[in-house]
């Protein structure tokens, strides 16, 4: 029952935070530019078009009124029209959301699968050659620009070795959408060939995002396990002869997992940040590539829409992580 209260309290924080985000984006898009209407209309717009836009979006009204208008617009899904595609920004963004999420989720899974065991083993065999190698690699991994890693991997695997495709999400059309995740949809439809193809396209972008994330996971998993290793219950279980493998893989790992969950929000944030450039390199048709194209086109509405959507998605994910953590750690109850 206490979990419910906790969850509700956390959910209650979401609207103000989202509102705050909207305020920030509003300030950036409507307050900072000398002439917001001109920015939104684009470089090639005529004076008449700019004035028309100004009246249409009420940009000549006082700021507080504009803000209210802006919020109501956003809530009804109206984020302006993309200069580039001439479609509503909102629909453009929503259609690209699944691609980015598929990438992000795949990357988190891979990062945990790589990072968690490495972190545990690294801590168990502290200062061994393996541990030192792992630490060196993670230090380098965290210092690498994500886009550079993407280009390097692309150079090696796609261009030189030709194992993975250079760009894109699929060759031709993807599976008929159920979830919007090509891999999942292909599986659900029993289309093994398509499943394989979509995996091949997913592989390199996922790896690029997953490696720095894995480095982060290794670091704090290692620290967490080292901390737990010196705790009294580990000593007690050893003193009472509980088999070491049970102590490590049942008790210590559980503590490490909880610690990992705490940090997943942070890792996810880095992933989203990395997705922008990684999608650009691999022409992965997600939010990140959308942002890049919009920047190239100076597509103002699109960029602001991207900021709102991405920010909101991140806030929601963090909320879910918070709730999950409260559920899993009995001391919170």
């Amino acid at each position, binding site marked *: 029952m206490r979990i419910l209260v906790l969850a509700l309290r956390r959910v209650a924080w979401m609207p103000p935070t989202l509102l705050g985000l909207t305020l920030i984006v509003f300030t950036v898009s409507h307050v900072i530019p000398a002439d917001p209407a001109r920015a939104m209309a684009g470089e090639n717009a005529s004076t008449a078009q700019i004035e028309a836009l100004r009246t249409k979006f009420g940009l000549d009204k006082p700021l507080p009124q504009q803000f209210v208008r802006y919020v109501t617009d956003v809530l009804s899904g109206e984020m302006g029209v993309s200069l580039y595609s001439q479609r509503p920004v909102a629909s453009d963004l929503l259609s690209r959301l699944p691609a980015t999420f598929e990438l992000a989720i795949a990357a988190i899974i891979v990062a945990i699968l790589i990072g968690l065991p490495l972190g545990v083993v690294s801590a168990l065999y502290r*200062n061994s050659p393996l541990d030192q190698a792992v630490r060196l690699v993670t230090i380098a991994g965290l*210092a690498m620009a994500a886009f550079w890693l993407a280009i390097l991997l692309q*150079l090696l695997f796609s261009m030189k070795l030709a194992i993975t495709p250079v760009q894109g999400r699929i060759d031709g059309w993807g599976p008929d959408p159920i979830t919007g995740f090509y891999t999942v949809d292909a599986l659900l439809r029993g289309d093994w060939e398509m499943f394989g193809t979509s995996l091949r396209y997913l592989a390199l972008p996922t790896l690029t995002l997953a490696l720095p994330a894995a480095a982060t996971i290794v670091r704090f998993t290692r620290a967490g396990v080292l901390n737990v290793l010196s705790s009294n219950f580990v000593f007690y279980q050893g003193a009472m002869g509980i088999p070491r493998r049970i102590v490590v893989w049942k008790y210590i790992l559980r503590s490490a997992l909880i610690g990992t969950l705490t940090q997943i929000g942070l890792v996810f944030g880095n992933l*989203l940040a990395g997705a922008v450039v990684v999608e650009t390199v691999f022409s992965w048709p997600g939010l990140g590539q959308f942002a890049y194209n919009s920047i190239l086109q100076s597509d103002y509405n699109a960029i602001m829409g991207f900021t709102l959507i991405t920010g909101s998605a991140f806030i929601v994910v963090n909320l879910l992580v918070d709730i999950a953590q409260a559920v899993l750690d009995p001391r919170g109850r």
Partner: protein
Amino acid sequence: MSMWRRLLRDRALLVGTVIIALLVLVAVFATPLSTFPEHVTAFDPAQRLKPPGAIFWLGTDRMGADIYSRLLFGARLTILIAVVATTVAVLIGVPIGLVAGYYRNWFGEMLMRVSDVFLAVPQIVLAIAIAQTLGPAIHNVILALSATYWPFWARLVYAETRSQRNEIYVEAAIAMGASPLRVMVLHILPNIMSSIIVRTTIGMGGTILVAASLGFLGLGAPPPTPEWGRMIAESREFLPQAWWYATAPGIAILLVVMGFNLLGDGLRDVLDPRIRRSANRAP
């Protein structure tokens, strides 16, 4: 503690310091150290996309400019952006955090809520929006980075100030009649200084990465500014043949960020007392 452990730790500090020192030296002495200092702005299309060789140590880019020289001048830019953006963020965020943490009034709480919103979103997402609005220029990049970084400092210092606020030495200082400003600056601040220094160092590395990403996306300074991220972006269309074009700036970024991270880690080991670190217990 075994010899290896100590060596690795000290080595981190050593390597980090060396790298950053080299970076500063390169930035300051870019002109004499470079082979073609004029290639920052000038170019020579006849020499475009040449591989590394005797004349052009790291090859040339699409405009025929010497990559090595541009890299050196790019170091100046990198330091400028990292130092200024981080410093501004610290200078704004630390006082805000101190005041908010000390007074715990509604104004401070409100500022913290604002900070939370900024922190609720990945830095680059907001930085893109701001940089796009302001236009492509180095000072706009710095502005965008500072504007999205100060909330981190405000939050950090707020939390630390709050916990220090209840310590006995603060009560004693107040009892002896010290003004709030005195307590904040002369008593609390020195105690959290080591944490600030360590994170500033590591933060510079992170700032460089975000700045490079902005440059890669085309939001940084316009060409022909030798910004490392932009150079990598330019190289994309000439891959895989002109591999050196992408490799050199990338390695530069890697080394510099690693340098800051190692330096920060080393400083943490030197500055933080052992006791504080072991006080945090995992579940």
